[in-house]
């Protein structure tokens, strides 16, 4: 193994993460988080979602600012393309989650990262959502994620970063395992 003279710095506060792991292991209630988003329909297929607060560590929490996201469908769907397609937000979530994981695992393993680029692609057969063929599912028929990583580590050690990141990724879990989704409605 290469001798590491300097400590890696990927900008991840691993000590805080490890501290949280220990603290939350002993306080399981504080570990229960609720993530939230709200959305307002604009027109057509365009809506604006906002992300603002969440619940965790036993109390309400706030992001530093309110984040707004336009979602729409592209022009080939006869839409106005005022934002990314909702399915693309799913890819954005997966990319963000896996990449954050790579950085955190690298920090924990004292591996200096120089660049991490992820390219994602999801296949989808529109015959599903258009109701043409009931044997075709609405969602993705598969997702591929390709990482290109420049780091001070061997090929296998970099592969292990990516593998460990998947193992600990929330979005990877959400996409690879079934999740209960309950939708309710009120007339206003």
């Amino acid at each position, binding site marked *: 193994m290469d001798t590491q003279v300097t400590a890696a710095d990927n900008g991840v506060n691993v000590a805080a993460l490890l501290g949280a792991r220990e603290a939350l292991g002993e306080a399981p209630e504080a570990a229960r988080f609720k993530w939230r988003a709200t959305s307002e329909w604009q027109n057509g297929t365009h809506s604006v979602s906002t992300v603002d607060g969440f619940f965790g560590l036993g109390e309400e929490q706030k992001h530093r600012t309110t984040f707004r996201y336009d979602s729409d469908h592209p022009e080939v769907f006869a839409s106005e393309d005022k934002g990314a397609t909702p399915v693309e937000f799913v890819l954005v979530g997966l990319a963000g989650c896996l990449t954050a994981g790579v950085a955190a695992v690298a920090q924990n393993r004292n591996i200096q990262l120089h660049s991490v680029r992820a390219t994602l692609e999801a296949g989808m057969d529109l015959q599903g959502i258009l109701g043409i063929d009931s044997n075709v599912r609405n969602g993705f028929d598969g997702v591929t994620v390709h990482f290109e990583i420049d780091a001070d580590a061997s090929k296998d050690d970099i592969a292990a970063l990516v593998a460990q990141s*998947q193992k600990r990724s929330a979005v990877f879990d959400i996409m690879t395992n079934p999740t209960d989704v309950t939708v309710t409605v009120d007339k206003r």
Partner: protein
Amino acid sequence: MSARESRRPAGTVDVVVVGAGHSGLAMSFELARRGIGHVVLERGEVANSWRSERWDSLCLLTPNWMSRLPGFCYAGDDPDGYMTVKDVVAFVSTYARRTAAPVLCGYTVRRVEACGDGYRVVTDRGDWHCRALVAATGACNQALLPAAADGVPSQVRQLTAREYRNPEQLDAGGVLVVGASATGLQLAEEIYASGRPVTLAVGEHVRMPRTYRGRDIQWWMLAAGLLDQRIEEVDDPARARGVPSPQLIGTRERRTLDLNALMKQGVEVVGRLAGVRDGKAQFSGSLANACALADLKMKRLLAAIDRWADAKGIVAGPAEGFAPTVIGKPRLGLTLSSGEVRTILWATGFRPDFSWLALPVFDRKGRLRHSAGVVDAPGLYVLGLPFLRRRKSSFIHGAGDDVRELGAHLAAWLHRTTPARVSGIAV
């Protein structure tokens, strides 16, 4: 059992060891060596769970030469072979006879409770009083089932690896084997060979070749010190203790059993069983990563072995590489009510049963609170759990070091708490 019957005094002794498997007998040997009075209470016969709770074709994952206990070792003519269940029963029974262990067979311990400065051991044949107690009842008393088991439709028969004996027990038709430790892989192979289609649900697992550079993988792990690694030396003890058994099988030809081999034979490999909903088993889409993790981990193990062999100048065959695990596009669901699957075999792990300890020694998840075998109650010890003190703690050959150290701890505790007048006379 009437209350009166359960209170019938059976005896008073310094130490009660519960369980006459290899761990309990090794502790008995250690206590005898130290001149500490004790009895070994056994619900059935010596090596009881080996006699009654293992499948027929099971062989040890360690070669015969590794089967050794304090004052006793394998003396047969096949040191590189692997003991069958019958061989293990004979081995442990011979040990009990040779060491003249004070085993009382047919005593089922119902409850252990605090009593004065010691314990009352309530059995179905009277109570024992002791100052120290060693729980050597094993790590595999109960099969662990995932929550998904609740949703399995009633027409599918469910069986645990603890109840499974051989394929003839199973209905004709498909079998879903859940779990990819040594148990899951061995049973998937055996059941497939019996003519039943097998689907194997695979989560995180540990891949290992049977032999590496001409020697048994267990030889390398032992020689390089990996099996002697102590629980204090690992980053995450809870995780280390929960690692599934490596995908190994003990056969005459010392062959490697892995997912590639099973798929080549015809077993269908799918992802971890994520749930059962509306009669449909749902498999995780994370199989590729589970395999990548296991492949990478195996490469790291073999690289560590190579580095150690180089440093020590070990004469062995050339370094070997192993093909990565190649999975295609595994299906993500399986309709259990269609008749395709007649049986689900749960090979999802085991847990020990300490429900007979009526003592405040459990954490919030019901796990026994102990530090490397020293239970969080004075004079109480546990043996034989995975990575209890060392990686080898649950192996037959792992008992020796553990009973020596825990025996010393126990002896010191007895000595400290011995009433002055008694020790005065003893001296």
